[in-house]
């Protein structure tokens, strides 16, 4: 169910990382623009996975 090869978990982790990095005093303006662009990419990935939810519930009968 991963989109663009990135699972939700990875995307969420990267989004969190970018949203922290952009706040760091060591990040310069250009760096923060890159953080923003990358963060937005992961945000869209997360959002897409959440939005494309099609929950499936099935029963697997065991052969005894």
């Amino acid at each position, binding site marked *: 169910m991963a989109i663009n090869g990135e699972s939700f*978990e990875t995307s*969420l982790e990267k989004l969190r990382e970018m949203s922290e990095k952009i706040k760091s005093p060591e990040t310069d303006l250009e760096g*923060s623009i890159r953080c*923003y662009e990358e963060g937005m990419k992961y*945000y869209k990935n997360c959002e897409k996975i*959440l939005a494309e939810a099609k*929950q499936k*519930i*099935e029963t697997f009968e*065991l052969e005894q």
Partner: protein
Amino acid sequence: MAIKPISVTQLNEYISRVLSTDPLLTNVTVHGEASGVKYHSNGFIYFSLVDQSAKVNCALPGEYARDLKYELQDGMDLNINGSLRLYKKNGSYSIFVRNVEICGEGSLAIAFEQMKNKLQNEGLFDKSHKKQLPAFPYKVGVITSATGAAVRDILKIIKSRNNVVDIVVFPVLVQGDGAAPQISHAIDIANEKFDDIDVLIVGRGGGAAEDLWAFNEEIVAHSIYDSRIPVISAVGHEIDFTISDMVADVRAETPTAAAQIAVPDTTELQNNIDDMKRQMSLELNNRVMFNAMKVENMMKDIRDSFNNRIEMARNQVGSLKMLLTENDPRRILENGYSIVESSGGKVITDAKAIDKSDKFKLIFHKGWAYCTIIETGSDKDGD
């Protein structure tokens, strides 16, 4: 007439026949406490069943011993079912046991402690073996009764929290004979056939201690331990502790709690990522504004220092002009002095330099005149 004496062998054979044909004694259930339990190398378990005033020997053959859910221990309260057999050699009888049922919480506690110690020694509860649950599972396996409250609670909670995750229910018996093998089998199958299941919930709703027993059985414990998929154990209520709980990667107090642990709330996640997005936008805006301000300040500094330079240069030019004006030799002409120039434009400062044939220009404060020189001379001191 007296009966003819019979041999001991005949007597014992007769009694043996009576015992093995009596409808009550061939299927009798006896209640008592286990004593002198011995596991024999021939597979039999030998023990005595005692009460306050009597004792009977029992033998449990290997094929039935295998079905025991727990190891027999002295002091356990048992109901045993079987038939009476005579041991002809020494004229004693014993119960040939077919089924053993443990009675009472005390006996269960003994069996539980024993299993716990055994598996603990085998390393099944080791913390280092515990797997981390995925933060965002895509498929959850639920191993429980198809008809119990647990499956309803689990499905309800998962659906209310998360509409992304898929759910596979593996219906199994959760109590009674055959429950433990089914639970164990379901865990094995989930691992073998579903490489996309991220987490398993194994459990059932509340019940009496003996109803939860399947989750204390060794076969279930080993399947949980061997599971590649992380397992959340959810058996009974908060107060119920089972072997499954101890082997599992995570123990949930109830099936409802297991569902909450297994899947994240997607609404909350959406809010979280929206928050992060907002923070990023805000941060970027702040940085752009901060940098624009910095640039603006620098430009202002540049403009200011440029203007200062121009102003300084202007002032310098002004003062130089004033200096020049003040020192302009023609200003003295206003006081009645005049300048004499030769026709070649040379200013005459010494009468000796005058050539009388030349024509001279007199420059006044206002206007000029040409003249000729009649006579030259000097003062007494020669000036």
